[in-house]
């Protein structure tokens, strides 16, 4: 009887020890936690036409031209980015501070300061909500080229992105 009990205890030890040591080396230690929240924004109007622009000017949309309706259940950060000037494929401006055939956009979140330089690669923080579900307004300004070599219409796509703060 003693032998049987010892054999069982040995088996128990052999079963238990390798499992506990193996656990430390597998993905069983990885934890994934998600806090329930909903992120939702909508923006209106969906565009603005600066029309014919004059060299070395800074036309703007007017303050609070755009409104973001925020239905998120948590505070959000809103970033802004554009994809440079395109259309037509040739004769399009470069995207940078005003220079010959070169222009960029500035933005601000409802105060008309135009203190957020919109980048054509990296999203830049435009607004952080103070409470969940806060709507806000924003506006755009064009730093027009200092001179033009061609008169083709220029377009860009501006993306505003919402993420949990």
């Amino acid at each position, binding site marked *: 009887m003693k032998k049987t009990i010892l054999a069982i205890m040995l088996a128990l030890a052999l079963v238990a020890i390798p499992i506990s040591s193996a656990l430390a080396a597998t993905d069983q230690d990885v934890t994934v936690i998600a806090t329930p929240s*909903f992120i939702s924004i909508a923006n209106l109007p969906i565009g603005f036409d600066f029309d014919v622009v004059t060299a070395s000017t800074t036309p703007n949309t007017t303050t609070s031209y755009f409104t973001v309706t925020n239905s998120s259940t948590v505070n959000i950060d809103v970033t802004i980015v554009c994809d440079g000037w395109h259309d037509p494929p040739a004769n399009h401006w470069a995207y940078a501070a005003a220079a010959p055939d070169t222009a960029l956009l500035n933005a601000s979140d409802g105060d008309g300061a135009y203190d957020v330089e919109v980048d054509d690669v990296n999203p830049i923080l435009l607004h952080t909500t103070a409470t969940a579900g806060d709507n806000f307004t924003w506006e755009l300004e064009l730093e027009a080229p200092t001179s033009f070599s061609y008169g083709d219409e220029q377009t860009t796509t501006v993306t505003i992105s919402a993420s*949990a703060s």
Partner: protein
Amino acid sequence: MKKLILLLAAVVVLLLAGCPAASPPVVETLEPPPELYDKVWISPGKVEVGHFYPGARAEYAVTIHNGNDQPTEFSVSFRVPGSAEEGYVTAPDEAQDWIIIADPTPVLAAKETREVLIALVMPEAAEAPAKKWEFWVSVRDASQTGMVQTELACRWLVTMK
């Protein structure tokens, strides 16, 4: 003696049953507010991955709701964060190769809600950008045509072992 053997056998079974399987994601469910029915939304806003290491895998589904009145194609993609959480660094571009998106272009029927599984799979030879790093999963309504378009992002905060 039989009783003792049975007792020991029961202990073995209980020990084995008690050993943890692969840790499932911690899911706290929350019903969306009714006013979100007609909106495009995603959930959750943040996913936190802990004790991660090269060679490991972590999964979580981003839930997308199409509040539009017509079927809509969405674009789900990796994104380098616009800003990182305090203490975290933004993921490098190559981290894109570590992200598997089960369906990068789901088409959702009007008012449909669907989960798209996201997996973070870091190769064993890969080097983490930092102890704590962050990437985003971007969700866009691909039918947008205006000059100003919106994007919703789910933040993934990764802490290495």
